[in-house]
């Protein structure tokens, strides 16, 4: 068994710099994902806005904001932080995910909740949906800031 001849001259490295795509804006970002996630939670769409995804930022802000405002208008229930009911805790988590809309909920909904009517019950769902939509936006912004998504 003889060894194969060794090539003394190493092969030239392939010129990959020409085949690589131009760096996209997402690869240039050096944002802290946690800070972006916090901003996205506080104001719906702010995380995407800071990541220069302005269309998505506007979409998330309109979606979460309008859901919350309609919910307040329908006099939905805003769950308090301390609840002995597990469903109340889940409701609080869903509501609190809407960020500034939850924090200003007591100001925007001066008349208080009225869940005796069907409209008030719908309002409760709208407010929770606003939080869930914003939660999805927070995760999306975090993923983009981490570089896992574009």
């Amino acid at each position, binding site marked *: 068994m003889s060894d194969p001849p060794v090539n003394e001259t190493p092969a030239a490295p392939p010129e990959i710099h020409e085949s690589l795509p131009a760096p996209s804006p997402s690869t240039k970002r050096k944002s802290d994902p946690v800070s972006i996630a916090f901003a996205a939670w506080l104001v719906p769409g702010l995380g995407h806005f800071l990541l220069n995804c302005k269309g998505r930022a*506007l*979409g998330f802000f*309109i*979606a979460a904001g*309008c859901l919350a405002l309609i919910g307040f208008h*329908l006099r939905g229930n805003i769950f308090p932080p301390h609840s002995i009911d597990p469903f109340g805790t889940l409701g609080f988590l869903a509501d609190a995910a809407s960020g500034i809309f939850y924090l200003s909920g007591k100001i925007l909904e001066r008349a208080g909740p009225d869940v005796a009517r069907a*409209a008030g019950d719908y309002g409760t769902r709208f407010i929770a949906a606003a939080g869930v939509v914003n939660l*999805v*936006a927070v995760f999306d912004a975090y993923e983009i800031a981490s570089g896992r998504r*574009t």
Partner: protein
Amino acid sequence: MSAAVSLAAAITIIAASTMSHFWAMVSFAALVSIALTCLTRRTAPERIKYAVWSFLLFILIGVGAAWLMYPFSR
């Protein structure tokens, strides 16, 4: 995107002014469809198609579920 925002704003105003259950359902479908569309990574025409499909499916399933429950309402 601006057309979608205008549509959402118009539906929101109608829903808030009338407080009708139907318009509440329509506004919910429109707003959640916009949010879901923002998550997709597609081209603009595909996004519009996705949003319209999502919106129509929300409405169709909502109305269909309402009719299915109608015999048990009384």
